[in-house]
């Protein structure tokens, strides 16, 4: 146990030195280091904002059901089956009726697996897009579990892109935007101590439409009553959409030279420009409502045909609100409304205070443990302490290497590792003490001390490791950081105890083979 070949000594030393180097590189500000990764600080230490957003997919589902109605009608008509009384209820069921004689035929079509146009079959999930039940001649369809998964995944990906564009436009440094589950998105904004503006921007779907305001009942396409943004009046607006946000290619805030009002200038793509030109040519004298998320921003009267493909939105903007509207229009609409269901913001001052407190606690804890070990074990205390210091370098080195995030509980995990890491050495040293009582030869006593304490050391560490692993998978945010340092700490502890400490012990014991009461 105590014999180390030259090659092993070399390997252990090199390995340790590499991590000492990585550890130290955290504290050197230079770009031309061979290794210049730095440990990432969690939001609780560097300050910043964490937002958890949930996508409300029910409008998307209703829209999807709405879209399937014409598809169904057409498909079954071609097969001489007439579907009647389409209805969407509770935002999730699509209902229609069939003639009694055709029930089984419709059922058969819906259950088909190959080339099913109306009810897609996903071979990878072994499931149809829709589940359905039949009551008499009434069919009730709803998206199956996997049909919903497809919808949610698609809207999540789309929402993520839009959120990224919006957050990037705000210009915070290195935002972190991640999917969680299939209807949530995490937004981490390091360094941001007041997320109000971002929250406002993310809270808007930014569904922009241009529609005519109608008087009386001239519209056959359907109409709805909408209120103005400022709540001042209501107007009946056609459901026919002339332009939507998708047609916009750019939008910018500016000040109108004539009225010196703040406005948002926009330019349209080719299709949009054509449609806008046509609508403004035929609609001179009418009011065109600019509708954002179900509210009318403004409704100017069309005086001239606008064929240039660019226009202007006015409506009591401050420069800030015009800037935000332009930003929202540029970044596009969200597929569905978002709700902020969790928010955690830490100011930079508190972050710095936490770092300072963490470092002080670490230093004091470390010092106390080191003094205790020296008093208790003298020369072997020194060995345990050298091991402990190197263990700390290894631990931080590995966290740096894997770019793990260090959080405040993570620092607590490091301090705790310092306290618990000496355990392995203590177990071994105490065992050696016992062995020496019955064995004159120091070398043999040390050997059997290491050998006999092995199961206890391994078992004891595995139990803590198990707890850390469970915490890693079940914990969230900063607590996850704790489980990482605790878990990695166990590996570095075992390495430093069985390689570094044992190497140092062996060097000392071989030199003092015959010394009485060596430990």
């Amino acid at each position, binding site marked *: 146990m105590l014999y180390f070949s030259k090659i092993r000594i070399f390997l252990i030393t090199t390995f340790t030195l590499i991590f000492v180097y990585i550890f130290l590189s955290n504290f050197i500000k230079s770009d031309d280091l061979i290794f210049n990764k730095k440990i990432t600080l969690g939001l*609780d230490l560097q300050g910043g904002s964490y937002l958890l957003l949930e996508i409300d997919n029910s409008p998307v589902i209703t829209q999807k059901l709405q879209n399937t109605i014409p598809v169904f009608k057409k498909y079954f008509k071609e097969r001489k089956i007439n579907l009647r009384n389409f209805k969407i209820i509770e935002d999730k069921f699509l209902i229609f009726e069939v003639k009694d004689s055709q029930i089984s035929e419709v059922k058969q079509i819906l259950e088909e697996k190959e080339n099913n146009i109306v009810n897609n079959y996903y071979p990878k999930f072994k499931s149809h897009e829709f589940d359905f039940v039949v009551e008499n001649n009434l069919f009730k369809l709803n998206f199956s579990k996997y049909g919903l998964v497809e919808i949610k995944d698609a809207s999540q990906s789309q929402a993520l892109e839009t959120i990224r564009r919006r957050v990037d436009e705000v210009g915070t440094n290195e935002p972190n935007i991640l999917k969680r589950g299939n209807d949530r998105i995490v937004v981490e904004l390091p360094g941001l101590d*007041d997320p*109000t503006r971002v*929250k*406002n921007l*993310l*809270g808007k779907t930014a569904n922009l439409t241009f529609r005519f305001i109608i008087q009386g009942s001239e519209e056959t396409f359907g109409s709805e009553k909408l209120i103005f943004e400022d709540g001042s009046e209501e107007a009946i607006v056609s459901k026919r959409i002339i332009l939507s946000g998708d047609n916009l290619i750019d939008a910018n805030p500016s000040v109108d030279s004539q009225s010196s009002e703040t406005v948002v200038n926009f330019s349209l793509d080719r299709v949009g420009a054509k449609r806008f030109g046509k609508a403004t040519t035929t609609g001179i004298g009418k009011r065109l409502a600019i509708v954002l998320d179900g509210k009318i921003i403004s409704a100017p009267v069309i005086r001239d045909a606008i064929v240039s493909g660019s226009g202007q939105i006015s409506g009591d903007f401050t420069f800030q609100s015009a800037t935000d509207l332009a930003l929202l229009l540029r970044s596009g609409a969200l597929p569905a409304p978002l*709700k*902020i*269901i*969790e*928010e*955690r*913001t*830490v*100011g930079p*001052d*508190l972050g710095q*205070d936490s770092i300072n*407190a963490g470092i*002080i*606690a670490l230093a*004091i*804890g470390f010092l*106390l*443990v080191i003094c*205790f070990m020296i008093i*208790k074990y003298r020369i072997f205390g020194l060995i345990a302490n050298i091991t402990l210091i190197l263990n700390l370098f290894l631990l931080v080195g590995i966290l740096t290497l894997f770019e793990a995030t260090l959080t*405040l*509980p993570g*620092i*607590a995990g490091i*301090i*705790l590792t310092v*306290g*618990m890491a*000496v*355990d392995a050495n*203590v177990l071994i040293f*105490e065992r050696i003490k*016992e062995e020496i009582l019955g064995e004159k030869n120091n070398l043999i006593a040390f050997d059997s001390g290491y050998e006999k304490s092995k199961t*206890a050391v391994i*078992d*004891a560490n*595995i*139990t*803590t*490791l*198990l*707890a*850390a692993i*469970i*915490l890693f998978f*079940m*914990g969230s945010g*900063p*607590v996850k950081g*704790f*489980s990482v340092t*605790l878990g990695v700490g166990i590996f570095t502890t075992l390495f430093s105890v069985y390689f570094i400490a044992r190497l140092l012990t062996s060097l000392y014991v071989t030199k003092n083979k015959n010394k009485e009461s060596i430990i």
Partner: protein
Amino acid sequence: MIKKLAFNRFYKLFNFISLSLILISIILLLFKGLNFGVDFKGGTLIEIRVKDKTVTITNIRDSLNQINLGDVSVKKFGKEDDYLIKFEKKDFNNPNFISEIKSKLTSSLGNTFEFRRVENVGPKVSSELLRSGIIAICLSLAAMLIYIWIRFEWQFSLGAIVALFHDVIITLGIFSLFGLEINLSIVAAVLTIVGYSMNDTVVIFDRVRENLRKYSDINIFELTNISINETLSRTIITSTTTLLALFSIFFFGGEILKGFSLAMILGVFFGTYSSIYIANPILVFLKVSQKTILKEDKD
């Protein structure tokens, strides 16, 4: 031989004390319950630092009561002029309500404070966090049970698990008694306690097993005592160094880690105690003998 302390003479006494403590803890948990923080209850937490020394808790509370926030609690937090504002917020959809609170406070206290931390947890998230916290603790107990079962015999596994339950329940009982807040970091602490308490028990059990193989003529009552004594200096040293580290977090690691380190300190204390006075008496109670171990060796 090492000087021997008769731990086994007090098995009955301490078992009685432990049983009473567990019973009291369960009663406390059932009737007083735990003081869940915003992580698990949902709601809003704001930590503010006030630079103006004349501002009092009452000022802050009065100012907040002018906006309809429901039941607001304002507490001092840490040594400086830091306060913790907590309330359960019903309407979660207005993204501006934090800034509304800020401007309300500015109008009544002046511009002498800053928001240091804002935590806002919706009801759905908080119930999910609570559920996953409970699952995590149960999972860790199950993992330990299985691990010890594999490494030792079922009698040992049972002893270790009862000791774990003892530590976790009494620690939570103390949190309930003093109304200390349970948040995410407390769950982390409880899991670490599970790991630590297990660690401590395993070391003694490992020795018990070794001694069972060595001596066939000593009964388990004596044998546990020998094993406890042989591992005693290790037990003391390790819990001392761990406690040194934990006290250092408690006193110097800042307010946020206070609850975490306190739970850990309690856990280490009870974990060490239960390894000796819960886990071992159970081996005695289950009449573990050399045969138990030899059967395992044959397998």
